[in-house]
């Protein structure tokens, strides 16, 4: 299947396309990355997961549009993202949550990029806080944001009385997370 179809399907909300992309490029990605860097299979797989998550995030936020990534470029895009992430890991830098296609496709630009210490630290704190989120907030926010479930659906899945309860709980979870982040930023000496 052509890559453009994958991206268009993701834009149209066809989540199966994400799984199909995963299966389609996994072997080649791991092969190329392991050839380029002295890393193990597990680490390469972790990079692949992160590269695809970034791809999906860029589609979701409109950074990759219907004609933004030509058919033949998807594999190169995923591999370049993986290489960039590997380089960032090596430099102990955070890869942005979303980024422009042009940027990652120009690998020389990635290699020479300037580092923003504050940006890195804040992003590391955000990623860590999201990863460490406890139940029920973790499940609720994943269902709402990643799986794009309606509050009615979440109420049914998580056995809440109604959608309004979900709205309240979601707001509480977000505020709790923001409060934690503000506190951590302050501890690190940054302005909110």
């Amino acid at each position: 299947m052509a890559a453009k179809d994958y991206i268009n399907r993701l834009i149209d909300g066809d989540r199966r396309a994400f799984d199909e992309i995963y299966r389609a490029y996994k072997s080649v990605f791991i092969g190329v990355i392991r050839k380029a860097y002295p890393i193990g299979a597990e680490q390469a797989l972790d990079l692949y997961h992160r590269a695809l998550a970034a791809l999906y995030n860029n589609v979701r936020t409109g950074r990759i549009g219907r004609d933004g990534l030509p058919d033949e470029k998807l594999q190169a895009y995923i591999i370049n993202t993986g290489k960039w992430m590997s380089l960032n890991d090596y430099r102990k830098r955070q890869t942005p949550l979303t980024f422009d296609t042009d940027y990652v496709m120009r690998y020389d630009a990635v290699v020479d990029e300037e580092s923003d210490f504050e940006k890195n630290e804040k992003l590391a704190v955000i990623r860590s806080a999201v990863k460490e989120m406890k139940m029920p907030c973790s499940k609720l926010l994943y269902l709402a944001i990643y799986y794009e479930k309606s509050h009615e659906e979440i109420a049914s899945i998580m056995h809440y009385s109604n959608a309004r309860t979900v709205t309240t709980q979601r707001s509480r979870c977000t505020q709790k997370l923001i409060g934690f982040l503000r506190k951590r930023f302050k501890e690190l000496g940054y302005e909110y």
Partner: protein
Amino acid sequence: MNTDPESLNDLIEAAVFERGAITHLETLERKVQRRKLWLRTAIAVAASLIVFSGVGLKLGSDARKVGYAFDPVSGQKGGSQITALMQEREIDQAQDAIVAARQKLSLELANPSSSDPEYMVQLDVDRQELDLLEAVCALRKGQYFRARRLLKAIAAGGGAFAPEASSLLEQL
């Protein structure tokens, strides 16, 4: 990095989305690995079954050939209804007759009708003959491993039929 409240919300949303996508892919990978493992196990089991059934068929066929090539009358020390049944290829009946003969022989050995030592030796030879005929019946039924076990016991016993048992074992 701009972390004003609105922008921070966007960052949180993007980070949750990223974590959700990674978690989804990790789950997908586990499923793929489980499926692969299941498939590999199924293939290995199927291959083993094919090999074992193939080997089993071959051994059974070899045992039958050896069993039918052996003439039970040739080494016979005494007349027997059992050998007659075996010559007529009535193996099930021959096996029944062996069981009956063993019971009769056990009773006779427990309570001999004569105390003549030669008579006792004859009874023991009869028992040994029954052992050999049982092994030959097993061969003719294709019971390779059972026949081999019985023949080894006869050959190791060094009795009257040990040479026949050894010869049959060599042919297997």
